């Protein structure tokens, strides 16, 4: 069953079922395109969004909490459409979501998740857990499975049981874990992240590891670049730690030393 909470508007809540004109109103639903070949159209949209997972995002749990980091490049095929995309979405003051895949899909459904989390707080007089929030999102995405949504996200937060990290995607998958990286640059980020990871890291060490992992991914992956943002989620909520331009980070990690001149022409002494 499709999740249509995103579409409800006030008029339909007032007179659900039978409207003013006396007709039975249809339940809210997303408008579907009038195309002769709906399946082919859906296949085409899926293909259109497929290369969009050009990005690098990562998150890991350590002793002090959760570290979340991402690049900021948006690419359309070979063209770089933006170097300043916010890929870490603030769902609420103690939960973050990362964006990989279709930007519109991620932004819309993360905001929808934020709404649902707030409604849960109001209904139950307590904050929703990271487990619960990720399950809400995973169920929504599962109901739209096969329709071309492209979402590869990590939900990171701090609740009563401590730090929590889940990976949720548009295929309907939901995984609990300690270390994740999503996107076309994720193999490169995993290499750095896995070799440098220790559970007992301080916040500074963990943020440097996250920044380095994103930097190395932007160096090797053509579809990742821009700014490496690093966020920390602790007991009091999330905090943005840094947003360093990756172009400058390269020369910070690899300072340019003047190289020895191989061949130099000198003015011959004139007559």
């Amino acid at each position, binding site marked *: 069953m499709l999740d249509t909470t995103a579409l409800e508007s006030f008029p339909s809540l007032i007179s659900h079922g039978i409207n003013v004109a006396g007709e039975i109103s249809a339940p809210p639903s997303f408008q579907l395109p009038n195309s002769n070949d709906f399946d082919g159209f859906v296949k085409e949209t899926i293909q259109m969004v497929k290369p969009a997972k*050009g990005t690098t995002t990562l998150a890991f749990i350590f002793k002090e909490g959760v570290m979340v980091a991402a690049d900021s490049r948006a690419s359309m095929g070979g063209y770089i459409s933006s170097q300043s995309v916010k890929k870490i979405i603030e769902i609420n003051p103690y939960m973050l979501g990362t964006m990989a895949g279709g930007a519109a899909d991620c932004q819309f459904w993360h905001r929808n998740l934020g709404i649902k989390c707030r409604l849960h707080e109001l209904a139950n007089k307590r904050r929703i857990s990271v487990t619960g929030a990720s399950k809400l999102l995973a169920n929504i995405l599962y109901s739209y499975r096969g329709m071309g949504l492209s979402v590869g996200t990590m939900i990171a937060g701090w609740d009563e049981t401590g730090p929590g990290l889940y990976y949720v995607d548009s295929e309907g998958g939901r995984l609990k874990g300690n270390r994740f990286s999503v996107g076309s640059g994720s193999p490169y980020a995993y290499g750095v992240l896995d070799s440098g990871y220790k559970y007992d890291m301080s916040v500074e060490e963990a943020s440097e590891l996250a920044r380095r992992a994103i930097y190395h991914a932007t160096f090797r*992956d053509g579809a990742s670049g821009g700014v490496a943002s690093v966020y920390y989620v602790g007991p009091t909520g999330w905090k943005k730690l840094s947003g360093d331009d*990756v*172009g400058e980070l*390269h020369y910070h990690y690899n300072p340019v030393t003047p190289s020895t001149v191989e061949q130099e*022409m000198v003015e011959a002494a004139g007559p």
Partner: protein
Amino acid sequence: MTIFKHNGSAVVAMVGKNCFAIASDRRLGVQLQTIATDFQRISKIHDKLYIGLSGLATDSQTLYQRLVFRHKLYQLREELDMKPETFASLVSAMQYEKRFGPYFCQPVIAGLGDDDKPFICTMDAIGAKELAKDFVVAGTASESLYGACESMFKPDMEAEELFETISQALLSSVDRDCLSGWGGHVYVVTPTEVKERILKGRMD
């Protein structure tokens, strides 16, 4: 991805006052993965003739080796370095020979001809020559390069100013292309000297 976008490249050449500049990016990739950041795309044919080959890297290396061979034979027979216009015709003919199984390269040729008059031209993968008086571009970043060169180019620039202009045009264009960049390589050639410079660019 089309075959021309497999490795990624950006090459540009500009004409100045009695000089020319030819520049390229330094990335060699396989689709989105970057393999090398010091790939040579511009090669010397003789002191006053340079060729930059964009497109599929293996074809550009092979085409370059065949062109060096043909030029060396010409030097032995004619006891003369080839003029840029003649060389361009040679490249065009060699590419058309492979009309139904082409080299997937777009060459950019830049040289100083008779009386050290600068000459630039580019051609498509099957040898259609495009002569220009101001600048020529090739590669995955070519659309951005066209825009950048069109706005930054001025006629009759001296060697230093030409270097600045071509570098800015190259770097700003490859910063909008996922498949090219990772540094730049610029040659500025005047009748008396050749200055080769490596540009510090964004490495993402």
